[in-house]
């Protein structure tokens, strides 16, 4: 047991895990977080708290984690390299661990050009892989980047993200291998729409034996409209949405229902895929749909550990 988090236990028992996302508010009001925590409790094993996602200023992920933990919900804090150098990253990791946070997702972070502070100076002292390796060294050896050894190292379960749909496709498996080598315990993938392509990536992952070394949570994203699908296909770099999915959304009489149905179908397929140990439901700005999807996809009830 590395950190003893709920998520870690689910994996250890060989169960199919479920994670979801809670986006912190663009304000100092903790209410939306509490609200979502109460609503989603019991529908997933842990919840990602995004770190100023798409470089938009939000309530900090560590503070958000603390707030939802008060409601008895387990957080996964996202930590990007965009806004913090190695001093701040290590310090925040110690702080988060001290507050009781057990899951950390290491990310490079979206470039500030996409957010609401385009003039910001970014940091990028590390990228996600370096971050993983540094955090891994800190938790296992208690050793900082600079070499100093600390007492009471943080006990954390380390995750990362990977996008099988970004170029060069043929190297995406190798990149996951680097993340595993750097110390990742689990990985959440980018939202999957092209199952064939994902399957191909999984083939590579399995061929490298990575599915035995890291727990893969396949990303799914319920869509509300055909427009959203088209937007993701055309405007979001590193996202592949096949035309047949857009067509399906376009033809649907109730696109919202269709989006839910599609998402549930995808989860059904992913559940059967060898090496996939769970799903990560990214209901962006549609958090209240998670319980229904979890239910319809037969993911309930979630296990609980004493």
């Amino acid at each position, binding site marked *: 047991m590395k950190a003893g988090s709920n998520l870690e236990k689910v994996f250890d028992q060989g169960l199919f895990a479920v994670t979801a996302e809670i986006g912190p508010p663009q304000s100092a009001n903790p209410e939306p977080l509490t609200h979502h925590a109460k609503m989603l409790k019991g529908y997933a094993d842990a919840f990602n708290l995004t770190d100023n996602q798409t470089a938009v200023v939000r309530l900090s992920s560590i503070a958000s984690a603390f707030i939802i933990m008060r409601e008895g919900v387990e957080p996964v804090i996202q930590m990007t*390299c*965009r806004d913090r150098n*190695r001093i701040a990253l290590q310090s925040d990791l110690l702080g988060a661990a001290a507050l009781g946070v057990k899951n950390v997702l290491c990310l*490079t*972070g*979206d*470039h500030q*050009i996409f957010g609401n502070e385009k003039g910001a100076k*970014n940091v*990028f*002292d*590390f*990228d*996600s*892989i*370096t971050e993983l*390796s*540094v955090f891994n060294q800190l938790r296992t050896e208690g050793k900082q*980047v600079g070499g100093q050894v600390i007492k009471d190292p943080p006990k954390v379960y380390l995750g990362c*993200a*990977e*996008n099988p*749909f*970004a*170029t*060069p496709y043929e*190297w995406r498996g*190798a*990149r996951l*291998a*680097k993340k595993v*080598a*750097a110390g990742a315990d689990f990985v959440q993938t*980018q939202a999957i729409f092209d199952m064939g392509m994902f399957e191909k990536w999984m083939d590579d992952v399995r061929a490298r034996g990575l599915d035995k070394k890291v727990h893969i949570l396949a990303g799914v994203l319920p869509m509300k409209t055909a427009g959203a699908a088209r937007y993701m296909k055309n405007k979001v*770099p*590193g996202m592949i949405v096949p035309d047949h999915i857009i067509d399906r959304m376009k033809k649907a009489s109730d696109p919202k229902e269709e989006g839910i149905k599609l998402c549930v179908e995808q989860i059904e397929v992913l559940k059967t895929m060898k090496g996939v140990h769970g799903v990560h439901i990214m209901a962006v700005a549609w958090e209240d749909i998670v319980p229904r999807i979890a239910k319809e996809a037969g993911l309930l009830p979630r296990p609980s550990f004493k």
Partner: protein
Amino acid sequence: MIVAKRKPMNEIAEMVAPYKNITVIGCRSCVAICLAGGEKEVKMAASALKVKNRKEHRDQQFETLVVERQCEKEWVKEVEDKILGADVVLSMACSLGAQTIADMYPEKTVFPGLNTGFLGVPEEQGVWSEKCVGCGDCIIHLTGGICPVARCAKSMMNGPCGGSSNGHCEVNLDIECAWYAIHERLKLQKRLDLIEKVMPPKDWSTGHYGGRRTYVREDARLKQHQKKGKEAVQ
């Protein structure tokens, strides 16, 4: 070379507006080559300001000249009288040139006519792109001759991020993804093993973040008794 571009004329006009005698100094090195601050641009900037003055019935005198390398004291010294005779100097060199003049003549006001951009190369006539950030610790022998520090928007060291889209960067789809390019290059050279290892945290102290840098070649420095005139006294 250093790549720069002219500041918008209105900004230049606003800077020099309160002054009567303006000396505009260009440079025949990098900024001439990147078409920003050679003799032609110097003369055109001065002329454009005069056109504006004609429109607004303002009277300003412009002196235009160009030095071989504005970042070196000896070349600047050659036009000293023109600098001292002016109310203000508008430097059409990179910021190094402007700072050289400013440091040499501390009582003089020196304005930058250019925005100094980056260390880059001409890709084709009229197109320049950044290829180096001067980090002080070159690693391109490990990355197929392509610098990820300068050419990746996030200076990633371990391969392309999830925004690499058809080989292009998510930040600007007109720009190639540096890591995609590195991957293709190393694949071609059959050296992909180079990027399979996790890179250790980069030591940025060799770069600007370690404080202002000075490189010294002791064997090239002049000894005290080799110096002439005033320099010898200091």
